[in-house]
């Protein structure tokens, strides 16, 4: 079911977009041609790293390759066409935000949004979320795609951003793509890619989104010329960050506003830009935490709102932005750690977090000891439970269950010297492999080899049945 959804969405991506936006049809065709042209190059590379979850990952590989080709296509058209592309994208997102609904045929983005939403509740939905964030981005070199695909944290971030942002986006599509690293890495990348250009991304309220999208699209045309040079440099970077996802913000979403600010502040680390911002913004002082923000004039720099009566020099702004970041993350941690809703204050909150992490670590140790005392009184029938399909997650456990479920029987005990080295072999296996899919085949082999030795090593009733009864 999930696969069908993914496939249908990827199909929609590859087909001509309806002329809902004002973009030229030429760009569409160009995109499609680029699609098909590039589609073949990526899948085999992607599939290498996606085999671990079988069919679903293959689907996602297609999906991802389609998206990456999508993503890379905007860079191909001539310089003049880029702004057109950007305006088209912005216009499309403006239509998205207006509708508030997700209709797959309408555009790439809506299609991806629906992918995100439809797969939101499915457990293994991280790859589409990845695609969602990648789609608005720039040329992503194929080398970075496996890294993308392998990062559930990234998927989570992307999903959060995308799900929060059903609304329009601004001219950040121009030259950035979401990195596969965590937010911190993205921040550092942003700071590192200062020269790659600044992107302005003011959040907008729901009502005026469409209008401001239009404004922004017009402004983006000018700012694109400035960004073009820096964009070329930005392309060279392996992972760049997208503020597009970040800056898509629901009007009522305070979290997203703060996230947008974080992105903005991260991108705009330069003092000069901040001074510019403060100069502009101080004329429009507003409550920082209000959800309904009037539309800001889209500029080339990051906007940081100054509070009423607060200093607007660069240092305090940066400090405030940093504090916002930290408080946002603490809020997220508060959601994670159970029973922290009533707690206020950083110190107590940190206390709770520390206690929770410690308790989790202790639980892991506890459980590992408990598993160590498990006593197998087993009888084996090898054909029944040797896992043939190493890609299936369930099989090892089923095999163990089958093994454990059998009654004890006598087997000659034979000691095989190479067993002790399995752990070393296992951990050594992990080192040279970046792709997660590389692990299952080795594990499958190990499983089969060791299971055989296990079979031979169990005795029947001679095993004493002493095990601790530990309360969980």
């Amino acid at each position, binding site marked *: 079911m999930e696969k069908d959804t993914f496939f249908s969405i990827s199909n929609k991506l590859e087909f001509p977009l309806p002329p809902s936006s004002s973009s030229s049809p030429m760009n569409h065709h160009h995109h499609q041609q680029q699609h098909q042209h590039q589609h073949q190059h990526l899948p085999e590379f992607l599939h290498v790293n996606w085999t671990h979850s079988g069919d679903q990952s293959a689907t996602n590989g297609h999906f991802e390759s389609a998206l990456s080709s999508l993503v890379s296509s905007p860079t191909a058209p001539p310089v003049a066409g880029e702004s057109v592309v950007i305006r088209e994208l912005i216009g499309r997102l403006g239509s998205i935000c207006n509708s508030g609904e997700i209709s797959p045929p309408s555009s790439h983005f809506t299609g991806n949004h629906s992918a995100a939403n439809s797969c*939101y509740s499915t*457990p*293994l*939905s991280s790859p589409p979320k990845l695609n969602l964030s990648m789609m608005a981005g720039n040329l992503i070199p194929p080398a970075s795609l496996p*890294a993308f695909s392998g*990062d*559930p*944290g990234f998927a989570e971030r992307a*999903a959060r951003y995308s*799900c929060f942002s059903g609304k329009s986006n601004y001219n950040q599509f121009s030259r950035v793509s979401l990195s596969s690293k*965590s*937010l*911190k890495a993205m921040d550092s990348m942003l700071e590192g890619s200062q020269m790659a250009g600044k992107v302005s991304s003011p959040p907008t309220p729901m009502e005026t989104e469409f209008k401001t999208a239009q404004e922004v699209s017009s402004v983006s045309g000018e700012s694109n010329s400035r960004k073009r040079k820096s964009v070329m440099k930005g392309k060279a970077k392996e992972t760049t960050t997208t503020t597009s996802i970040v800056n898509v913000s629901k009007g009522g979403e305070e979290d997203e506003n703060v996230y947008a600010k974080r992105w903005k502040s991260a991108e705009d680390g330069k003092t000069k830009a901040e001074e510019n911002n403060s100069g502009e913004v101080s004329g429009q002082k507003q409550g920082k935490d209000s959800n309904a923000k009037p539309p800001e004039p889209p500029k080339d720099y990051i906007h940081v709102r100054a509070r009423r009566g607060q200093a607007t020099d660069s240092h305090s702004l940066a400090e405030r932005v940093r504090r916002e*970041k*930290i408080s946002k*993350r603490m809020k997220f*941690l508060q*959601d994670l*750690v159970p029973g922290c809703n009533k707690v206020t204050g950083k110190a107590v909150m*940190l206390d709770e*977090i520390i206690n929770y*992490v*410690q308790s*989790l*670590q202790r*639980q*892991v140790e506890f*459980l*590992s000891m*408990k*598993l*160590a*005392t498990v006593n197998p009184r087993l009888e084996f029938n090898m054909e029944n439970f040797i896992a043939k399909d190493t890609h299936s*997650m*369930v099989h*090892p456990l089923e095999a*163990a*269950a089958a093994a*454990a*479920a059998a009654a004890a029987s006598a087997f000659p*005990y034979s*000691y095989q*010297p190479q*067993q*002790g080295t*399995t*752990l070393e072999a296992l*951990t050594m296996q*992990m*080192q040279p492999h970046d792709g*997660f899919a590389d*692990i*299952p085949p080795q*594990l499958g082999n190990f499983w089969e080899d060791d*299971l055989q*030795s*296990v079979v031979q090593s169990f005795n029947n009733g001679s*095993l*004493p049945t002493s*095990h601790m009864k530990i309360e969980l």
Partner: protein
Amino acid sequence: MIMSQAMHACKQAQFWVHFLLAVDISITLISLSFSSSSSLNMELEKNKHDSNKARDLNDSRTVIERGRRIKIAAEIGLVASSKGRQWSRALHRRLLRKKGRDYSNKNGCNNYHMIKSEGKEDHEEGGDEVVEIERRVKVLQSLVPGGEAMEMESLFEETADYIEALEGQVSAMRALATFLDGLEKKWIM
């Protein structure tokens, strides 16, 4: 809020899936440890045909050793389930370093209490809350693998991801333990 919960569930399910893979390792290790362990290799060879060998399998020493190996397997699963994270890479490095040494517990569970007592003895500075928070941040850094290298913002983010990974791991191991327990007591069989 609902979104974050749903996302959390997604992530946990994903960790579960990834961790089951590592549980494969742990099951292997369990079985392995019954047949041999690093400290018992020689002993078992000597007692190869001795019927008493089974008696050693549940010695406290062997159980502890087995537990450590299972914990290593759990950490492998943890690393595998969350690649691309700073703590994951740091944990991976730690595991590889461990490989050549004793499989000793490296988690500083008592650091918090140590640091707290140190703080009480220390002379409190003017910025009281800042000092307090800094202390706790240090403790958190010691808990999260690779935390010393992170500053506050990224530390929180890594902590969030680490917590989710740990929760997934704990639930997976707990389910496994319950399952095997049930088998032994013949609830299921």
